[in-house]
């Protein structure tokens, strides 16, 4: 059972304060949010930092519960995905990993590239144009999640794709929220 100790050490080593793996639903989203909030309260975190982390977390968790593809056929759970929060002296890291269809990779990555190419005012304009002209998707998304994560964090979004099989790709996303000193 050494893996338990290893996992624990990895978490400490990577400064992870919260890791959740499994099914993502609205109920689980609420629980994860309240755990993270309590965690930040315990550290006496600045309220503006807390709000930004909360914002990014909600978009990240709701993205997973709306869009993640099921990828372990034998698994009992749906939307197998991972969500983690790391905390260092200077910043929080909100990370997620979930499967997406191979066909969607190009769309996701071009959206993220576009967002990363914009400055604060550019993001504001993009946000306004999407909210004004866009429609809610069938899944209830407004197409604003990534833009909002970039706006609130003020940082570039980091992302990566790892092939899983002929139809699926694992999508990792990391948002950094600087801590207000």
């Amino acid at each position, binding site marked *: 059972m050494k893996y338990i100790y290893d996992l624990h050490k990895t978490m400490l080593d990577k400064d992870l304060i919260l890791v959740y793996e499994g099914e993502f639903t*609205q109920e689980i*989203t*609420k629980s994860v949010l*309240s755990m993270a909030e309590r965690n930040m309260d315990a550290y006496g975190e600045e*309220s*503006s930092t807390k*709000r*930004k982390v*909360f*914002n990014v977390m*909600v*978009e990240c968790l*709701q993205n997973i*519960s709306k869009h993640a593809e099921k990828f372990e056929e034998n698994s009992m759970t749906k939307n197998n995905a991972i969500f983690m929060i790391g905390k260092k002296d200077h910043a929080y890291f909100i990370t997620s990993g979930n499967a997406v269809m191979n066909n969607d990779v190009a769309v996701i990555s071009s959206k993220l590239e576009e967002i990363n190419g914009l400055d604060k005012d550019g993001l*504001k304009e993009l*946000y*306004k144009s999407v*909210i*004004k002209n*866009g429609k*809610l998707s069938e899944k*209830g*998304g*407004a197409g*604003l*999640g990534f*833009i*909002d994560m970039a*706006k*609130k964090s003020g940082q570039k979004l980091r992302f990566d794709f790892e092939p899983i099989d002929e139809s699926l790709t694992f999508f990792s996303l990391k948002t950094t929220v600087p801590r207000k000193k």
Partner: protein
Amino acid sequence: MKVLNLEGTEDTPKIILDKENGVFEISGRSLPEDSAEFFNPVLEWLEEYKDSANGETVFNFKLEYFNTASSKLILDILSKLEAVEGTKVVWYFHEDDEDMEEAGEEFSDLVEVPFEFETY
């Protein structure tokens, strides 16, 4: 008109729409699973209200947090208010919450409704 009164929960805001007493307010947190479904009664209520609106309508947004799907619906609510004569939106934000202040400014750019900003 019937009063629309919804108690807030951990993921939905408190809403009061009361024509008779002139109270129009959305407050708290908004991150429902299905924001379109959640806000539909508000949009329907406003659709009915606009035909028999009070001389003055002061609509208070006192949100602590809302997700991006809710922001789309907030814009729909504001668009409905454009059709209500004598409407003013009061956008409350916590004094150190620049993001909420900015969100209000963005909405005010998008609709033809007068906005006032208040801190709490």
